């Protein structure tokens, strides 16, 4: 498979994966651009792998996890702003499209997670990988994967409860 054949068939899926992984369109774009640039240069090596697709996805994951911390700091502020917007939207649109609002709400809360916790959730629930495969991908023990998943789910629930409390306080 040439690099061109790879991108013509796999790039849309890779971009979907990247945006779900990063939670940010701009960052997904930058991560995939960077990965594809490096993949193109060493494509012969990648093409010899059992699955070039899995190889490139691993590159995307590593790129995301090693991305500069400054992005995360700025992004948390952006998410906070976005949570407010979602709160407003929820008040006015509760009667319809509730599932869409819920998905948006959860998406916003996912953005508050540390990157590794988010990565575990994406790999487990979006990529449908088992914990052993995730551990291999993230170069850690399966117990660490379970620990990260557990913490992530706990954080998501806590954020949801805090948000609900804030909204209730505002209503009263």
């Amino acid at each position, binding site marked *: 498979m*040439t690099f*061109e054949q790879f*991108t*013509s*068939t*796999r*790039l*849309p*899926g*890779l*971009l*979907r994966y*990247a*945006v*779900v992984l990063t*939670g940010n*369109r*701009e*960052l*997904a*774009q*930058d991560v*995939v*651009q*960077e990965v*594809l*640039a*490096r993949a*193109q*240069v060493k*494509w012969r090596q990648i093409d010899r792998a*059992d*699955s070039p*697709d*899995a190889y490139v996805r691993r590159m995307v994951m590593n790129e995301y996890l090693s*991305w*500069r911390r*400054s*992005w995360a700091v700025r992004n948390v502020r952006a998410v906070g702003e976005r949570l407010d917007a979602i709160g407003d939207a929820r008040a006015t649109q509760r009667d319809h499209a509730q*599932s869409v609002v*819920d*998905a*948006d709400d*959860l*998406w916003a809360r*996912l953005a508050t997670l540390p990157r590794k916790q988010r990565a575990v*959730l994406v790999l*487990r*629930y*979006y*990529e449908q990988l*088992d914990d052993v495969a995730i551990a291999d991908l993230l170069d850690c023990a399966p*117990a660490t994967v*379970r*620990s990260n*998943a*557990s913490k992530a*789910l*706990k954080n998501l*629930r806590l954020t949801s409860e805090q948000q609900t409390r804030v909204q209730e306080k505002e209503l009263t």
Partner: protein
Amino acid sequence: MNQDADQLREAFVAHEYLAPDAAEVLAVAHVRARAYRRRRRAAQGAGGAVLGAGLVASSVAAAGWLPNNNGRHGGSTISMAAPAPLPSPTALTTPTPVASPSPLTSAQQDQALSAYFAAGYNYNDALALAQLWHMTGDPSTIKAEAGRRLLAGQTLPVKPSVASVANATDDADVNAFFAAGYTYEDAVGLAGLWKISDPYQAKIDAGTKLLAGDTLPIAPGSQPTPSTVATSSSDSVSTADLNAYVAAGYTYEDALGLRGLWKISDVYQVKVDAGARLLAGETLPIAPGSQPTPAAEASANAVASANDNAVNAYFSAGYTYDDAVTLSKLWKISDTYQVKIDAGQKLLAGQTLPIKP
């Protein structure tokens, strides 16, 4: 647990639409790959190991990577971002004050963004610029403004994260290639003929030959345009393939099974490929609906769910990671995660732990 899984999957899938434009991503990736190859060649030419990244960076700075009004950097790199010849950047070179950015047309914005990425800047750089310029809002606007300044021959206050090293020889070769009427598809065809994996290298080699007066083995524009990435037509094909997959009675679990067989990570792509094969009259290696959720997986999910509940009970009771470490020593269990599970199960069973939260 299963509810969590469903909600998370729904949230992920519902936001797939945010995926960036594939053609734009690919164009920038080509430009960056070009910069990497140049750095690699420069490093090899200068003695490889001796020339480290720092030297490359300093050589970039010394060369003055930023374009001047009379420079060719912006135009030439943009032409590599998209195979088709682009308008001359002189349309945007008016050196006007840029304290308050004027609105750009869509075409100007595309050109400015191309210049921005071609110069080696990325998203993080846009954030840094936004702080320096006290700009807020969509990062694309900041990138476009930065690209506009680059095209106007100005210097940005931050260095690019991806250094782009100008190489006049390569530019001349590639320009000769395109000037002769050849296209990106021709470069792919030549790469196949010459057994070069990289079409960009094929452009350089072809340009060198053209400048030397040689003729190429294929005529300009003779190679057919391959199916483009993420076009509306390919989308409709994907939809047809997906419909065929579902209509044949295949399920999401079947796609997971096929994924393992075909070694494709993307489940969506598996469905599309499977649907295409079905439409072509082929049979798939597994029968429709033959991959129910394995009992083992359900069992594992149940165990994981119980574990999650136990860990949640542990934290809800006010215990911390440090407490788990203390308990691990008391109970002689090395895995602190397992300690949290055990402790949580005891708490859920109404028992007390040997230490206070």
